[in-house]
């Protein structure tokens, strides 16, 4: 393949992946999924009933992998019957979003109903307002992942079948969303009632913020907040993963010989070394800027 074509396809894949990452994180914020949902489930037990949607369908990676595999399989079947790729991918994403919507509804009812003894109501208006938003985000995520997988399978001639590529990228986007954007929701948004700049004190577990900027807080308020930082950075993380892992093999094309293939591996290692140094740089800057949380006891004794 022409290097320029390869780079163009890779750029398109990176852009689609960035959108997929952002929408994946915001979907998990609206519905409240993954690890921060432990606090949403804990809150009623600590006598803090709330109006936040709770959908622990499963961990984010399996749930996104399921969505993407359903979308990929549907699209793949439609393409073999002669449907155009754009239509097939869109219909695949719609089917996946509909199934995800079903799980979101049953998960919310199940979770909330099981907390009846803690006086946690099941809000039908929360379901009506949140599930279409969840499905909308799920559609965007699945469609973008299918675009990435379709481009890989057809233009870049990746040997894996479309549904399997979609499954793997679904696992990866879920793992990234769960590792990055969710922390913004879990450690910051849910606990804006405590002073900024520390981890959650175990004593505050379950005491999540229940009042919104206006009225009572719900999942859509959370996605509004997380869309300012957690969502976009998740998008960047997934976009960077798809782009960089493809970039090393596109620029240093191993079809021209094994030696170029080894250069691509070295390029990957150099990227990782740069990231290690960047992490260290941020660590030093954060320690200098924020300082310590407590005094060194030995130094305090000497001073006394």
């Amino acid at each position, binding site marked *: 393949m022409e290097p320029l074509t390869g780079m163009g396809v890779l750029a398109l894949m990176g852009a689609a992946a960035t959108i997929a990452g952002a929408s994946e994180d915001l979907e998990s914020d609206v519905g409240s999924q993954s690890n921060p949902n432990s606090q949403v489930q804990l809150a009623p037990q600590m006598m803090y009933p709330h109006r936040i949607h709770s959908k622990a369908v499963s961990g984010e990676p399996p749930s996104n992998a399921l969505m993407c595999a359903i979308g990929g399989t549907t699209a793949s079947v439609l393409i073999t019957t002669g449907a155009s790729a754009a239509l097939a991918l869109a219909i695949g994403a719609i089917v996946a979003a509909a199934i995800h919507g079903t799980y979101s509804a049953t998960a919310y009812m199940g979770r909330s109903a099981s907390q009846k003894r803690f006086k946690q109501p099941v809000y039908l208006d929360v379901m009506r307002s949140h599930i279409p938003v969840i499905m909308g985000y799920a559609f965007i995520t699945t469609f973008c992942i299918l675009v990435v997988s379709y481009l890989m399978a057809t233009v870049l*001639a990746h040997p*894996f*079948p479309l549904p399997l590529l979609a499954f793997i990228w679904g696992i*990866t986007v879920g793992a990234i969303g769960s590792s990055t954007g969710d922390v913004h929701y879990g450690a910051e948004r849910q606990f804006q009632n405590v002073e900024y700049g520390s*981890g959650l004190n175990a004593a505050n577990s379950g005491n999540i913020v229940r009042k919104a900027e206006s009225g009572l807080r719900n999942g859509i308020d959370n996605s509004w907040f997380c869309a300012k930082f957690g969502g976009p950075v998740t998008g960047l993380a997934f976009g960077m993963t798809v782009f960089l*892992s493809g970039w090393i093999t596109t620029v240093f094309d191993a079809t021209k010989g*094994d030696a170029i293939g080894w250069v691509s591996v070295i390029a990957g290692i150099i990227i990782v070394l740069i990231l290690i140094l960047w992490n260290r740089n941020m660590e030093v800057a954060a320690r200098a800027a*924020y300082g310590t949380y407590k005094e060194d006891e030995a130094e305090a004794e000497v001073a006394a």
Partner: protein
Amino acid sequence: MIDVAGILMQNILYVILITLGGVLISWSVHFVPVGGAPAAMAQATGIGTGTVQLAAGAGLTGLVTAGAMMQITNNAALVIASGAAGAMIMIAVTMIVGTWVYIYGVGCPPASAKVKYDPITKDRQDLYVSQGTEGHGLPTVSYVSGVIGGALGGIGGSVVYYSLMSVTNQLALADLVGMASVFAVGIFFVNAVIPSYNIGGTIEGFHDPKFKRFPKAVVASLVATLFCALISVLAIGGL
């Protein structure tokens, strides 16, 4: 009738390689700094997700890279190294963005609660742990440990995939790739789950005392993967 003994004898090298790949995956999971649910609330050092999730995310990204490379070269070392590079990139990118969120979104510096000094940078850790938490973020030692875990997981996944693709068979290439990749993903998950019982939700990396428990998981993975290897080699070799 499938000649079970014949297929196994013919592909015994691949059975051994798949088993070793599985063991590598199991070992690699112990390096990945995962804090589980507490880390998502900045209550524990590491990445705010589960062991299986992150290890699988990294390893499978490596598998995608290895699959692409295997189609253009027969050089086993290059395929395996590409898998390692893909997995390392995924985990390194995830961790760096995780650090952005901990530092700029949550406002806490990376700190480990398991050691007083970072073994790599020698930085003091305990003073930077906020009250009521078991550390937060990704100090350098955890970051480097995660990269090593990603690399080993990528190598393990690629070895499994390469071995499955090399089993003697009469399948069309598209069918072989489909079966080998699905088996590789399955074997990856088996070996990502086994160590999570060892880790019990959170581990900071190779400096964490829990890391020393890895031999138990490695032995368990050896047994489990051997069965997976026998079944996958028979399935592919018998078709």
